[in-house]
């Protein structure tokens, strides 16, 4: 279906990534935000406080991130499309409720404008150090989806995709921006509402006496309902059966937790999104994501000027990971170079998937700035030897 025309600022704008994210959320149909101020994500939250009266959305500033991250889930059960926004320290507090959203299959979006960590770290400076936290930060086994925009335009475009994926799979989606992308101002083109695809919530049409809230469909995703519709649902973070009732045994745990993982892992091809540039005849491929992909493009140009055959694979959806594609590339190329603004996180997945078929070279950066492109070029030159 198309986006609601109300509130969509169709046209060409000069926006920073944070504000573009807010506008994208409105376009996606987001009508509820709960949050708590934290640099460098606050502008997303502030813009929605200003914009929501005009679009019919509900804004609430909560007392902390624990509250924000569960208020959005109450809102989803009340029928809203909801998100929260934060950065490292706040995201750490939210992790319990990423687990609740995964367990009780609540479609919602967590925006993380990444900054340097651990702890209070570098509030105003970029990092990509939360990539593994996004995937594994809550306890137990579950899968989430994570997207990484590299420009204000993508903050707009991909937050819509984030909402759509959350609805499609009833899963929390982590929207992994970083301080550079969040505070970078560029042209953002907002399309007409009828050009924006919005995935509607998959509400059940079954009568109350036939509906089982956690009975999966063929795609392993159960249909949802909301409070006040007469279904008298029960929702719990405990291990539960198809009725949603707690069942404390290994069999129910296996069925539920396996399905939560499989509904994502068995649909990787539908979920993942990546962009390739000249990888087919490359000797070296750079795998990058987020702001680092833009630095990598410059580094790759410099390496090509030296006569090297360098390809670029940019991850747009980072989790679930494109295992199959990395395996194929690893059997063809000499080396894969992975620059990221952390001490080596996504590179671990690349290395695992490469399985020793090619060299995998990490180009780490501790955070606080983006890479100097030259360090990536040097890694490419070294890798091509």
């Amino acid at each position: 279906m198309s986006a609601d025309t109300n509130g969509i600022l169709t046209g060409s704008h000069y926006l920073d990534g944070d504000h573009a994210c807010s506008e994208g959320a409105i376009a996606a149909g987001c009508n509820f935000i709960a949050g708590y101020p934290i640099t460098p994500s606050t502008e997303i939250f502030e813009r929605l406080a200003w914009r929501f009266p005009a679009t019919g959305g509900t804004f609430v500033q909560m007392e902390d991130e624990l509250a924000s991250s569960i208020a959005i889930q109450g809102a989803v059960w009340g029928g809203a499309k909801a998100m929260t926004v934060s950065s490292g320290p706040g995201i750490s507090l939210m992790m319990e409720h990423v687990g609740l959203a995964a367990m009780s299959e609540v479609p919602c979006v967590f925006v993380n404008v990444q900054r340097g960590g651990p702890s209070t770290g570098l509030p105003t400076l970029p990092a990509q150090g939360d990539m593994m936290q996004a995937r594994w930060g809550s306890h137990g086994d579950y899968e989430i989806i994570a997207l990484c925009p590299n420009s204000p335009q993508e903050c707009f475009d991909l937050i819509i995709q984030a909402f759509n994926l959350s609805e499609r799979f009833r899963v929390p989606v982590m929207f992994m921006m970083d301080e550079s992308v969040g505070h970078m101002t560029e042209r953002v083109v907002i399309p007409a509402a009828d050009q924006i695809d919005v995935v509607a919530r998959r509400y059940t049409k079954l009568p109350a006496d036939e509906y089982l809230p956690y009975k999966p469909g063929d795609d392993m995703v159960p249909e949802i309902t909301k409070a006040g519709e007469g279904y008298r649902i029960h929702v719990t973070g405990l291990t539960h059966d198809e009725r949603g009732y707690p069942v404390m045994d290994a069999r129910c745990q296996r069925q539920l937790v396996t399905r939560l993982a499989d509904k994502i892992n068995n649909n990787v091809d539908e979920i993942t999104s990546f962009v390739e540039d000249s990888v087919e005849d490359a000797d070296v491929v750079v795998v990058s994501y987020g702001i680092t992909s833009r630095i990598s493009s410059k580094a790759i140009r410099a390496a090509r000027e030296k006569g090297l055959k360098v390809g670029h694979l940019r991850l747009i959806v980072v989790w679930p990971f494109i295992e199959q594609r990395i395996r194929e590339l690893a059997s063809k190329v000499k080396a894969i170079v992975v620059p990221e603004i952390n001490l080596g996180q996504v590179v671990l997945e690349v290395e695992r998937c490469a399985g020793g078929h090619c060299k995998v070279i990490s180009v780490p950066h501790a955070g606080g700035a983006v890479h100097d492109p030259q360090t990536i070029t040097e890694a490419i030159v070294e890798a091509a030897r």
Partner: protein
Amino acid sequence: MTQATTEASDKIVNPVEQYLRTERIPHIWCPGCGIGTTVNCFARAIDKCGIEREKMAIVSGIGCTGRVAGYLNFDSFHTTHGRAIPFATGLKLANPELNVVLYSGDGDLIAIGGNHFIHAARRNIDLTVICVNNFNYAMTGGQVAPTTPVNAVGTTAPHGVVERSFNLPFLAESSGAAYVARWTAYHVRQLTKAMVEAINKKGFSFIEIITPCPTLYERRNRLGDGLARMQWYKEHSVIKNGAPTRECDIEFQNEIVCGKFVDKDLPSFLEVRNAQLENLRREGIARS
């Protein structure tokens, strides 16, 4: 009329049963526990409230009382430890037509969830919070809580509590609650009435219910079984409607002041927010 329907209409029906997920009974609560008594009162209160059944949602946190949501036959949400209030806040704001009732324990609402409790009261958001206070963490085996009176014992204070306990009515009132009452599991009629009032109250309403936990708190403190405790509540409760909440502290084995302490007409979060939206609409800023 067929024979079968005549028989069915002659059958004595428990008035509470329709509000329970009977397929989940037996429940997990111990003999002599007071939580079931409060649920019975709650079901009877719902009957008297006259609100639409399908527009009521129950939210619980974690703990023995946290299991209430799972036994009540409404839309019900068993959330995370301490976070029932912010969940309920989101639910209420997303669908203001819902009557949202929180049902949880003292540890859940006041210790780990204490910050959410005071902020929800401050916002005066339209929620009813029912706090079952059994003076300890029962689900985990009887540890002391911020409500355990000084000198009482628990597994984490085997030599007696040295910290002052919270006076919940005072905490609720000073944080901004519009309705505050306290009853014990003995006072079933008054409690049922208070529940009706609290559910129909605009804004943040709060009921503390003192209940026995014979398996843990009463046993460790040698206070007898559930029945003995009911007798004790009967003899040691003092009903003081309108009592200043600052005078409602509970000391170990001292009198329990019960009653309706606060019943004020205060603008609720949604009233104030909606009035603001109305103004913005008049100025052409907000959508109708």
